[in-house]
Each structure stands twice: as structure tokens, then as C-alpha cells.
């Protein structure tokens, strides 16, 4: 059995770890709240852009949908997958779950060669390790990325799509359901599946479009792609922080349990030592008196 001194050292070290994980849990909780708030803030813009596209692509006779490259469906011979992961680990199974989803997409769902783009260090590192080629990588976007920061990724995807290097673009990210649940998900961002909303198209029938409905739609489409990727990124960040919060809470709980166990062991060891010393003294006294 370990000596009481060793056990005490062990307890101190576990207690330090618990302090760190507890602090990380609280940081993650605060960041998660802010990240959720950002997800909410991005919604009005996204909703409105989607509604206008729905309305415009439904106008049918007024707008010729076939002249917009971003709406063009063609046989898919090559796909691009944008993988959104966290830059940091210690977030439970979050990163491995989304990477596993990406692998399943590449090997099963896609059925065609897939080109990778990584957003976030963990995904980049994984695909670099397994030797998969990556077209581009974007890391260290921080806890509050702006739309300007993801524009290069969008420009890349849109150009690759328009110039025919890929025929479809997907994003795999972690959808934030609630604090305890995050779900990896694949979302097609190109070609744009024009959302359909009859109520909305009824509403815009009498709109004046300046300079023209075509020009407006032309300008709206890339923004839609952009906001979809941006929302995926924001949701992934909210997921990351809540997964980290839960992971760190579990770690803190485990550390406390371990401390309790170790304290028990320590007391037993201490008592054993006392018993041994007493019996040694008693034996010594008996020998002298005998």
C-alpha cells in the first residue's frame, strides 16, 4: 500500500486538476451563452434573405431562374466538403463526432470524389494526419468570428462551383440543439435549393425592384450562401462551448470522487500505520518486562 505521504501528494494534484477543470467549465459556460446569443442575432438577417430568395425564385415568369449559376443543378462528378471543427480540444466527443460524420459522407453518402476544406484546427490536423488533401484551411477564427472572416471560404466555394471544379458544396458542422445535445449535420449550400414560400411570393408581387428583380436576386444569392455557412460556424461554436462545459463538469465531478476515494485510502493507511506503531511499542515493552 502507498504511504500516507504519497497519497497526500496525489490528493493535492487531483485537487489542482479539479480547480482547473472547474475554471474551464465556468469559462465555457459564459462563452456558450454569448455564442448562443450570436446564433440568435444572425437569425433575422438569414430569415429575411431566405424569404426574399423564396419570393424571387417563385416569381417564375418575371425571373428566369436558369440564368443564375448558383441555382444550377448539374450531375455531380466532384463535391466539396467544408468541415467545421473547433480549434481546441477538451470538448468531449464533439470534434471526433463531426469528423466521423465527415468520413461517412466521403466514403458512403457522396459517391463521388470529395475535395476538403477545413475550418478549425482539429479537422485540419485530422485530415493532414490521414494524408487527405485539403484545398484550403481556415483556422484560429476565435470565439466570435465576423462574416468578413469567412468570406474567403465562401468566395473559394462559389468560384470553384461556378468554374466547374466542383458540382456541389456541402458543409458538415455541429448543430446546437441544447446544452446537452449537439448533432453533427451535413448541409448542402451549393447549388442553392431555392426555398419555396408561397405566402412570401404573394406578398412581394407588387414590389418595385431596383435596379431589377434579376439584379436583386443576383446579389442575394451569394449572401445566402454566406449566411448559411456563417450560421453553421456560429452553431458549431455554441456546440463546442457547451460540449466543453459538460466535459469539464464531468471531469470536475470525477476529480471530486477521486479525492473522496483517496481520502478514505489515506485514513486507512494512517490507521494501519498507527496500529503497527502501537503494536511495535507494545511488543517492545513486553520484551523489556519479560
Amino acid at each position: 500500500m502507498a504511504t500516507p505521504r504519497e497519497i497526500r501528494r496525489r490528493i493535492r494534484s487531483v485537487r489542482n486538476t479539479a480547480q482547473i477543470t472547474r475554471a474551464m467549465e465556468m469559462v465555457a459556460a459564459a462563452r456558450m451563452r454569448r455564442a448562443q446569443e450570436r446564433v440568435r442575432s444572425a437569425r433575422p438577417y438569414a430569415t429575411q434573405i431566405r424569404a426574399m430568395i423564396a419570393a424571387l425564385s417563385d416569381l417564375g415568369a418575371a425571373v428566369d431562374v436558369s440564368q443564375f449559376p448558383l441555382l444550377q443543378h448539374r450531375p455531380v462528378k466532384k463535391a466539396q466538403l467544408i468541415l467545421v471543427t473547433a480549434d481546441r480540444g477538451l470538448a468531449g466527443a464533439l470534434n471526433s463526432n463531426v469528423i466521423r460524420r465527415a468520413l461517412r459522407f466521403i466514403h458512403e453518402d457522396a459517391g463521388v470524389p470529395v475535395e476538403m476544406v477545413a475550418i478549425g484546427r482539429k479537422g485540419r490536423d485530422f485530415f493532414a494526419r490521414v494524408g487527405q488533401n485539403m484545398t484550403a484551411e481556415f483556422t484560429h477564427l476565435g470565439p466570435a468570428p465576423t462574416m468578413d472572416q469567412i468570406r474567403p471560404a465562401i468566395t473559394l466555394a462559389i468560384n470553384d462551383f461556378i468554374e466547374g471544379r466542383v458540382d456541389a458544396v456541402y458543409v458538415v458542422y455541429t448543430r446546437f440543439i441544447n446544452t446537452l445535445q449537439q448533432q453533427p449535420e451535413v448541409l448542402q449550400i451549393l447549388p442553392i435549393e431555392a426555398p419555396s414560400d408561397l405566402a412570401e411570393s404573394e406578398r412581394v408581387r407588387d414590389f418595385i425592384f431596383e435596379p431589377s428583380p434579376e439584379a436583386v436576386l443576383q446579389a442575394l444569392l451569394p449572401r445566402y450562401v454566406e449566411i448559411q455557412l456563417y450560421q453553421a460556424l456560429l452553431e458549431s461554436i455554441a456546440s463546442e462551448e457547451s460540449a466543453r462545459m459538460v466535459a469539464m463538469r464531468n471531469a470536475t465531478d470525477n476529480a471530486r470522487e477521486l479525492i473522496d476515494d483517496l481520502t478514505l485510502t489515506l485514513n486507512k493507511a494512517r490507521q494501519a500505520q498507527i496500529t503497527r506503531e502501537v503494536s511495535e511499542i507494545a511488543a517492545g515493552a513486553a520484551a523489556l518486562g519479560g
Partner: protein
Amino acid sequence: MRPTKLSVEVVTGERVVYAAEDVDMVVAPGADGQLGILPRHAALFTLLSAGEMRVKKGAAEQSLVVFGGFLEVANNRVLVLADTAERVEEIDIERAETARQRAQSRIADRSVQWDLARAHIALQRSNVRLRVAGRHRSRRGSHPPGQPEP
């Protein structure tokens, strides 16, 4: 009867920049020139260019800068979906000035291959920011309407 007024909302992908009720007039940089919107305006959806947007409410006026995006008017509601937007009091003059100088030196500097298109955009943006901020600061005292975002 209460006279008809406008409600205004300016949103970007990141946040709600500005929101106000009971507005008398909105002036915005439309793609085809300055655009004035009064209550009972016809339903309109237009592209925006970069420039100043003004919201008039009684004697007060709130000024914003917007850089591209869309403006929708329907049922006395003005909704701006901007690529980037700031309220005038949020403009960081020092930063805009630095950005302007950097962009100018990059455009002037022929020895290095700077991304000229980007430098020109940066120059245009900082010029708009400085112009709007400068004008606003020279006529202080008008209280901006609307509730600033928390």
C-alpha cells in the same frame, strides 16, 4: 388619428445594428442614388451602395454608415439587410484614419504587388466612415432617436 410613421430596422449577419419606431423619414444610399423614404411609401426592394443612412424622428436624427446590402420597404416598415453597418457613434475615427492611410500607401506603392481591388475598397470604406463621422461631430447636440443595442 395618429399620423402614419415608419418603423426602421438595420440588421447585419452579426447583429441588429439599429431599430426604431415612429420614424418620419429615412434617407439611404440606394444603388441608383440617394433614396428618401416617407411613410406610405410603395413596397420596394432595392440594392444599397456604400454611404450614409439617416433616420429622422421629429427634430432628432440618427446617422449610420452602411456598406452594401439590401433595403426593403413594406407596410411602413423599413428593413435594411446590410453587409456591414455601424451607427455613427460607433465609428472608430482613429482606426478609419489608419486604414485610409494604409490603403493609400498600398495603392501608391508600386514596388509590392498589393491587392489593389481590396485596397480601393478599404480606401472607399474608410473615406465614407470619416466623412460621416466628421459631419456628425461638427453638429453635436441632436439626440439620436431609437434604442441603441445593448
